[in-house]
């Protein structure tokens, strides 16, 4: 029975290219479908160009949604990357 999971994080820095790449590589490692939601826009977490196209900046809230057998693990991993990467503004 596939599960679903959702968590939010407020960015402490802009979401730049390198963390976008790290998110996409990590998302592809899970079987769950994952997406990032910023305001009215969303992107497939496996799409580095989609993530960069969100133009997410410091202070904005990013919601990570996942659906699939490893949804919880996927959300945890992606939130960790966002927390680590944007904190230093890379």
């Amino acid at each position, binding site marked *: 029975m596939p599960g679903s999971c959702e968590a939010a994080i407020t960015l402490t820095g802009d979401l730049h*290219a*390198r963390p*976008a*790449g*790290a998110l*996409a*590589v990590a998302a*592809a*490692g899970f079987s769950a479908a994952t997406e990032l939601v910023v305001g009215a826009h969303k992107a497939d977490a*496996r*799409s*580095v*160009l*989609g993530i*960069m*196209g969100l*133009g997410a900046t410091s202070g904005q809230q990013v919601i990570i949604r996942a659906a699939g057998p490893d949804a919880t693990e996927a959300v945890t991993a992606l939130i960790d990357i966002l927390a680590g990467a944007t904190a230093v503004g890379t």
Partner: protein
Amino acid sequence: MDTEAKVGIVLVSHSAALAQGTAELAGQIGGGSVPIATAGGTDDDGIGTSIAKVERALRLADAGAGVLILPDLGSSVLTVRALLAEAADLPEPLAVADAPFVEGAVAATVTAAAGGDIAAVLKAAQEARHARKL
């Protein structure tokens, strides 16, 4: 998935600097695990393309899982096609992407880094055409 060989990327550009810079950017965004080789400029390093450079880059980028070739402009495709028509013992499988150069290189590299096969890497590069940046 991580222990398997990654699909390699070959960037074919009329400009050595453009190919090199794009490789550097894609490599950083992709985390550095994907073999990316460049074939930029003519044999005497002018603006243009070189069959010999493309062939060398194909062999450098081959880690056993195949190689995706990204040409910068249409006429780079002629050089790639000329090589594919005449060369023997090239890496397999090979695919040529019809994609924007920078976005295609980044998307292909990230998908290869995640363990995608040649079909997935080609699709990622070609889907880059539809990605909005604004």
